[in-house]
């Protein structure tokens, strides 16, 4: 389309408003086409929902392979360009960042909302009216979750822990590690509880991946673990284990080298030559002596430690490791209470940290440095094992999701039942509420109520159950006695409709609240767009040397 001008009489020249090549489309067709695009994206991740959900294998342009069940990861890798469909990618990502779990359901829910209101759009209902309805429904639903959510007593430590474990288990059940749920939930909960309960900085949970071994061989280190870095000759002569080591963390390069890169020394007499050499040696030895003087016996540095220093330390029964990654070093500091020093002058024993035990150990095919039993242990490290790299990556993502859920659950202690139970209950509630509302809103809210059923429906479908049968059963149960059958949902294990709250399929209420809010937002956003103006991708600027046209 060559630009768009206002409709003008024949004789007048066309007024060009937009740049040539700009693509525009507008009105209801545009809206409908946006909705179709969103639905198409939804279809891709539909099958990943629930304990019987499947994984996706995605190979990107560089040939990297990702196998994942995580909604946000898949959406990101799909590389969606359709602008409306991109909002779905964004809400998945937002959900991931905000609560870390429920990324698949949020996309699914948004898609289903759009699908349900589509017919209203086709019938010509103003999109503004629809948006109002959807928002209202979302508000009602969220308020209802607040009423329904069960708060677990914080005071009882055992109970609080059980809550965390259950939430983590629900999040894990759809993942590859689902069958090792018990093992990994314990690990996730232990890891989070070890953190500073005020800040809950998940950056303090280090995750290290070591290929080889079964996933059951994964372990949680109550301290810091990192891979042995590159070492110089002499390293093997250093002692490899200490009880109560004194740890120095440095940001100093311990190598014999030119102090300034482009410096030049002019020597007048031959005898001075030796003096310069000696001076250079003295610089490094001064540094080494200063470190030793503090009584440190484990020296870590972010910068390289040269062979000279390695041998110096080996000579004096000190362990050293150079080129330690920044985050590892930070966590060592956090765990042992030492401070990173950028210079060796003024280095005192006060800057050193300690822990119960330090050792170098073989984990799989790699040597690891382990710091265990740390006094200020506000940090921990999870060492993941698995048969293939993609496998460990997926385990890491799943574990990360659970850790995020646990983190959230530590803060808010209210939970709802998963497995489609809460969605079914909200659906019933909205349907009842809709009847009391006059006008078009009634229809829209009823449509939202129907859209919420997508979660249990998809769960059944993925598990290969008779979907209609299950959904009708659920609807009936929830309608018969909203109080008694409040937590009835799809029980995948039993292949039946049961009380999932009693079965401990728990999810933090926050996950659901966030999911419904973002899904509604995304749907409203898509609905409010009636025109896309995309300027043509700017081509390569004119190749140099080519004459400008017209002259």
């Amino acid at each position: 389309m060559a630009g768009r001008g206002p409709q003008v009489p024949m004789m007048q020249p066309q007024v060009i408003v937009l740049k040539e090549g700009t693509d525009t489309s507008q009105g209801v067709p545009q809206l409908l086409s946006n909705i179709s695009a969103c639905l198409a994206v939804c279809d891709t991740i539909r099958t990943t929902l629930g304990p019987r959900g499947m994984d996706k294998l995605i190979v990107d342009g560089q040939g990297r392979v990702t196998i994942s069940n995580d909604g946000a990861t898949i959406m990101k890798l799909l590389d969606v360009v359709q602008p409306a469909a991109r909002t779905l990618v964004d809400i998945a990502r937002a959900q991931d960042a905000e609560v870390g779990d429920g990324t698949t359901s949020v996309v699914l829910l948004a898609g289903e909302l759009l699908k349900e209101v589509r017919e209203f759009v086709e019938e010509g209902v103003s999109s503004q009216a629809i948006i109002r309805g959807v928002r209202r429904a979302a508000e009602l639903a969220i308020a209802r979750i607040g009423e329904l959510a069960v708060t677990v007593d914080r005071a009882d430590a055992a109970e609080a822990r059980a809550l965390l474990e259950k939430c983590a288990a629900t999040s894990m059940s759809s993942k590859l590690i689902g069958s090792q749920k018990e093992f990994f939930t314990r690990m996730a909960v232990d890891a989070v509880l070890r953190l500073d309960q005020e800040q809950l900085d998940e950056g303090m949970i280090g995750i290290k991946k070591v290929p080889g071994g079964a996933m059951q061989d994964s372990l949680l280190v109550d301290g810091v673990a990192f891979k042995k870095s590159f070492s110089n000759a002499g390293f093997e002569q250093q002692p490899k284990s200490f009880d109560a080591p004194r740890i120095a963390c440095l940001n100093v390069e311990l190598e014999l080298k030119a102090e300034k890169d482009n410096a030049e020394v002019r020597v007048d007499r031959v005898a001075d030559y030796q003096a310069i050499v000696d001076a250079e040696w003295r610089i490094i030895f001064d540094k080494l002596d200063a470190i030793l003087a503090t009584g440190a016996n484990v020296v870590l540095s972010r910068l390289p430690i040269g062979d000279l220093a390695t041998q110096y330390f080996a000579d004096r029964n000190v362990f050293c490791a150079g080129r330690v990654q920044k985050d590892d070093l930070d966590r060592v500091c956090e765990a042992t209470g030492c401070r990173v020093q950028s210079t060796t002058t003024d280095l005192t024993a006060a800057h050193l940290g300690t822990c119960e035990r330090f050792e170098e150990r073989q984990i799989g095919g790699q040597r690891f440095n382990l710091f265990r039993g740390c006094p200020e242990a506000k940090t921990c490290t999870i060492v993941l094992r698995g048969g293939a790299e993609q496998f460990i990556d997926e385990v890491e993502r799943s574990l990360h999701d659970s850790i995020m859920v646990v983190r959230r659950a530590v803060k808010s202690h209210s939970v709802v039942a998963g497995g489609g139970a809460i969605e079914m209950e909200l659906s019933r509630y909205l349907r009842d509420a809709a009847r009391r509302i006059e006008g078009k809103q009634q229809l829209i809210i009823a449509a939202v109520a129907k859209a919420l059923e997508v979660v249990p429906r998809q769960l059944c479908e993925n598990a290969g159950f008779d979907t209609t049968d299950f959904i009708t059963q659920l609807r009936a149960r929830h309608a018969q006695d909203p109080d008694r059958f409040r937590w009835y949902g799809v029980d995948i294990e039993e292949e039946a409709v049961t009380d999932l709250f009693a079965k401990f399929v728990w999810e933090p209420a926050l996950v659901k609240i966030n999911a419904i809010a973002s899904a509604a937002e995304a749907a409203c956003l898509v609905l409010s767009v009636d025109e896309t103006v995309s300027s043509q991708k700017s081509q390569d600027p004119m190749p140099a040397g080519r004459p400008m046209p017209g002259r």
Partner: protein
Amino acid sequence: MSAIYTTDEYGRPFIIVREQDKKSRKTGIEATKAHIMAAKTVSNIVRTSLGPRGLDKILISPDGDITISNDGATIMSQMAIENQIGKLLVELSKSQDEEIGDGTTGIVVLAGALLEQAEELLDRGIHPIRISDGFERACKIAVAHLDKVSDVIPWSKDDTSDLFKCAKTSLGSKIVNKCHDQFAQMAVDAILAVADLERKDVDFELIKMEGKVGGEMADSALVKGVIIDKDFSHPQMPKDIKDAKIAILTCPFEPPKPKTKPKLEITTVKEFEELQKYERDTFENMIKQVKDCGANVVACQWGFDDEANSLLLQHKLPAIRWVGGPEIELLAIATNGRIVPRFEDLSAEKLGAAGTIREVTFGTTNETMIVVEDCANSKAVTVFVRGGNKMIVDEAKRSLHDAMCVVRNLIVDNRVVYGGAAAEISCSIAVDKEADQVSTIEQYAMRSFARALDAIPMTLAENSGLPPIETLSFVKSEQIKQGITSLGVDCMDTGINNMKEQFVFDPLISKRQQYLLATQLVKMILKIDDVIVHKSDDQ
């Protein structure tokens, strides 16, 4: 293709995913089946390498390098597999290699067999996740059963006969079984020399492998010391030194250079002479320092020029130059010496001690090596492998590495199960029995798991030229009848089926790892129902 390429109500196509025409996609059962196909193909390739009568593969790399190997992990990594699922299998055998070091073929065969069984179940319409759930349950039973049938083998520093037998089992399928006993003994001795028995830790960096083409495989030996692939810096230096005191230096034999760029301008003849004198003095001073501390051999990480060389000869100091970093380190560990960075720091206690240092010449070639033996500290050892050609030497090194891993694993955990697929058959029986008590669909998957375990003895029998089905059913019935779980496939045709009597052992952790890893990988493959591949431009 609907999800990627869509038309709206008005028939206008619109693009959702970037460069969608370059992406291929497979979904649902079709995807799963394609994966199973790929995995089966890969596992069929390594199948024939299993067991003592397994055959080797020859692999030619793009550069024309030839590798002959029987080791699953080596074959797999050299095959340059393109298929995604194939790559997963490669990683599987690699991680078995890294973790255990042995059983890399078995794990791939097992994974392939499991997937083959899964395909049948899929055809019957069973949900892939139900299948993998069943496999996992079966795997749990099998692993628990392994614990039950395992035996503890006693060993100590003095009695290594059982470790020796395990090493033999691992070496059985390899090319080196010509010198079976010798290699097994080498593996056991090497590991015991470096093992930290208290912490049950074995550092492989202390074992160095050297290979030299020529001679016979039987000439291979374990040197309690270090072999350096260098010669003495001057041909007239003595070739055999007794009671050596080694100065291990990491500085060159030349006037020290500051790292900051120096510049010396010489304007007069006198100054030039001074410089010359300074240089000579430094050399002499250095040699004096070495002599003073009592050293009679010098090992240097760097080189030195002819002048220094002849000075060394004059002062009767045999020297080795250009010794690499790792070798310097090993030398220091073996001789209990310290690595010295400056001549000023040399002192008597920093010297390393060795009983003999000699230069060895091989055959008619001019190749020489320096052997440092009878060292003060026996913690560092070198395995020296000889063989007719490069391929054999390399394969012998790999085989020896596998055998050493087996011994290492036994030091860490001294429980064993019986080889010759005795453990698999026994697990298969156990899983079958448990499966009958499961009331859900998983029962089928569990039975299939037992069938997949049977694939190992079948392959073993096939590779040994025995009738597979007959052998399997015979051994299985004997196991049940006699209640002895150590009955296996008699690959070597000795007439004895009891692996306990044949002394065919496998470490328990190796078997356990095989089952767990294979099951987990199969689960991962079965769980995939959608493959989106971004094709690169040239395809």
